[in-house]
């Protein structure tokens, strides 16, 4: 975070604080475990505003992204958790729900409700412990969303204007646009093909979903089906590879999200699909393309519109803390979902989780131009993994998809291998899943 943007954040926070009278602390001090991220500064500013306004104390335990999950896991398994609020990622929250680690918010305070303005992101805030499904219909409210990470398409408005292009609705249109804008010094698109914790798998979701494919799908009856070796996934991956090979980065298999964002910031890429880091591209100390990046939902196909994967973050309260701390944690979450807090959050450079704010007059201001794309993409956003073994499945997909992209393994073979390996993991975990029908 630059000095400048920190100043903005602080200003936003103090403005908010001024609007309320300074109150004495009513709640016990709490600790929030969170990972370092581009949206963290905004969260920090909101926390500071909360402290100023209420006099309560909130400690932030900031971790490298890679260690964050492990930290939370060990905390909830201890006799008493050192953390009062866990910031859980969309890829992993089911593990915490399934393990019974998260306190239902209405058990802490029966009158607590999730504000109607706050997105539930495919009901991911709720869990039906008996049916073991993610649903607010008969499920308990377990968390409050704190950040709506989804992939959205970033494109260069200035280049679009110059070439007279229109915003792509399908991958084919994106391909054509990318081809037009590709030069010796600029990639048509930069994709995130590197193997990581949840890197390449996250990047391919819009492609495979919009071709009717998937990785592991949950059926209406709650059972699971491995779909990574479906025709839809194959078609989606072929589209992904076509973009990568013809108009993409020469080293797609080596690109992390960091690289992808850097490519956009330095003007080396005409398009990227990325979770928005809104402040970054308009910050002169970090970007060569200030004011030139525009946003849209990811493309789809003629048959299936854009579908973007949820990579959002949820705040849950662990069961293994004192009642006072639970109350204090809930007090913060109640406050966090207010309109004022959500606006301050956006003003400090993060993405709010409030529909009201995303669709407010703020979205008309140039600096918040990403809001419209977000609001448009979110209705089609989907959960990626809805079972606790997600980390094991991810280890497989990250490797196999990366190998397919890097040319280490033919695509069909990679998808078939992944399907077999995933089936094995799921069967070992006790799911009733048939052997996959391999692609020929």
């Amino acid at each position, binding site marked *: 975070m630059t000095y400048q943007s920190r100043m903005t954040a602080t200003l936003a926070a103090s403005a908010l604080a001024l609007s309320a009278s300074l109150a004495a602390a009513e709640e016990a001090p709490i600790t929030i475990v969170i990972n370092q991220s581009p949206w963290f500064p905004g969260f920090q500013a909101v926390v500071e505003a909360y402290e100023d306004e209420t006099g309560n104390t909130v400690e932030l335990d900031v971790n490298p992204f890679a260690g964050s999950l492990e930290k939370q896991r060990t905390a909830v398994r201890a006799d008493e958790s050192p953390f009062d609020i866990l910031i859980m990622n969309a890829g992993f929250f089911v593990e915490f729900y399934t393990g019974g680690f998260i306190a239902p918010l209405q058990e802490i305070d029966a009158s607590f409700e999730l504000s109607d303005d706050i997105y539930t992101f495919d009901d991911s805030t709720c869990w039906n412990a008996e049916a073991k499904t993610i649903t607010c219909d008969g499920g308990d409210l377990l968390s409050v969303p704190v950040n709506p990470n989804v992939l959205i398409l970033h494109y260069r408005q200035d280049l679009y204007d110059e070439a007279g292009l229109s915003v792509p609705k399908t991958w084919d249109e994106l391909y054509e646009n990318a081809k037009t804008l590709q030069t010796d010094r600029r990639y048509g698109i930069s994709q995130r093909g590197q193997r990581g914790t949840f890197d390449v798998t996250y990047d391919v979701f819009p492609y495979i979903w919009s071709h009717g494919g998937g990785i592991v799908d949950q059926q209406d009856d709650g059972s699971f089906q491995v779909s990574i070796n479906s025709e839809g996934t194959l078609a989606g991956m072929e589209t992904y590879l076509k973009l990568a090979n013809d108009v993409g980065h020469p080293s797609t298999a080596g690109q992390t999200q960091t690289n992808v964002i850097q490519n956009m910031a330095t003007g080396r890429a005409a398009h990227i699909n990325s979770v928005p880091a809104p402040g970054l591209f308009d910050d002169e100390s970090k970007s060569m393309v200030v004011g030139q990046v525009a946003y849209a939902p990811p493309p789809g196909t003629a048959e299936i519109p854009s579908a973007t994967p949820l990579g959002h973050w949820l705040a849950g309260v662990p069961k293994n803390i004192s009642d006072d701390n639970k109350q204090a944690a809930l007090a913060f979450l109640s406050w966090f979902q207010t309109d004022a807090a959500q606006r301050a959050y956006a003003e400090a450079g993060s993405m709010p989780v409030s529909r009201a704010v995303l669709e407010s007059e703020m979205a008309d201001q140039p600096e918040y131009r990403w809001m419209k794309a977000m609001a448009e993409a979110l209705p089609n956003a989907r959960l990626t993994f809805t079972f606790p073994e997600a980390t094991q499945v991810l280890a497989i997909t990250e490797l196999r998809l990366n*190998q397919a992209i890097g040319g280490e393994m033919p695509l069909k073979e990679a998808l078939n291998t992944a399907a077999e390996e995933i089936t094995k993991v799921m069967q070992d975990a006790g799911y009733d899943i048939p052997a996959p029908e391999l692609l020929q």
Partner: protein
Amino acid sequence: MKTDTFWRHATLWPALVLFALLTILPLIKLLALSFHDVEWINREAVWDWVGLANYARLPQDNLLRAGALNTLIFAVVAVALQMLIGFILALLTTRVVRGRVFYRTVFILPILVPGIIIGAIWKLMYSYDFGVLNSLLLWLGLAPQDWLGNPDLALLSVIVVDVWHWTPFCFLLLLAGLESLPDDIFEAAKIDGASRWQQLRHITLPLMLPTIAVTFVFRMILAFKVFDEIYLLTGGGPGTSTEVISFTIYRRFFTEDQTGYGAAMSIAVIAVIAAGIIAATRATAGKGAKA
């Protein structure tokens, strides 16, 4: 000779207790864990006895296979290069008087820097689009290389970082060894008409053997445990081309939370290392010079 029994025990026990509590005890725990699958239900850990099933999975684990192979390649190639370059440089610089403080300061520097920083520095230097190395190649009119993203090149790039990091260390140790060799032997050899190559082959190398061995063992042990540098550089990718054993264990045990399986993997690695060390000790036992 009467030895004070109390003090004999009192001097050794701190080490024994520490080893027992922090190495043997966790090992026993790991061993127990390795025969189970652990699942968390309602905040309770449920241990399911699975017998040897976790061990049976090991040979089929493609990450483990790649990790073991890469670790071996990494350790052998990196350490060999470090020893070779270090030794050549050391031979070149014995008895350099002017500037030795400067040189030594410079050569110690990399050792003092946390591996995580080394990883970060080199990650940027290797960057395909902005890295110094590719800028240099372009300036020379050559095609840029995908140092960390090309599966054929990635492990080599990681090895280069390790060579940069640790060659100075080898150099310092070997130089100290060279400088401690007695001058008169070389004088005598010269009088006997030994060529320079003969001097190196028949005097320098044999005399340097203990130093070489110590440096080699020291480096091999560290190379075998490599984690921090790769953590930031490649995270084990692309594919499995830079996956190393520490990483595989970290991934299986921590990230994927397969504690039973991860424990089995740890036990297997420890067993292989123990067997290797015992075999190596047996093999060299006759040759004396035991540490």
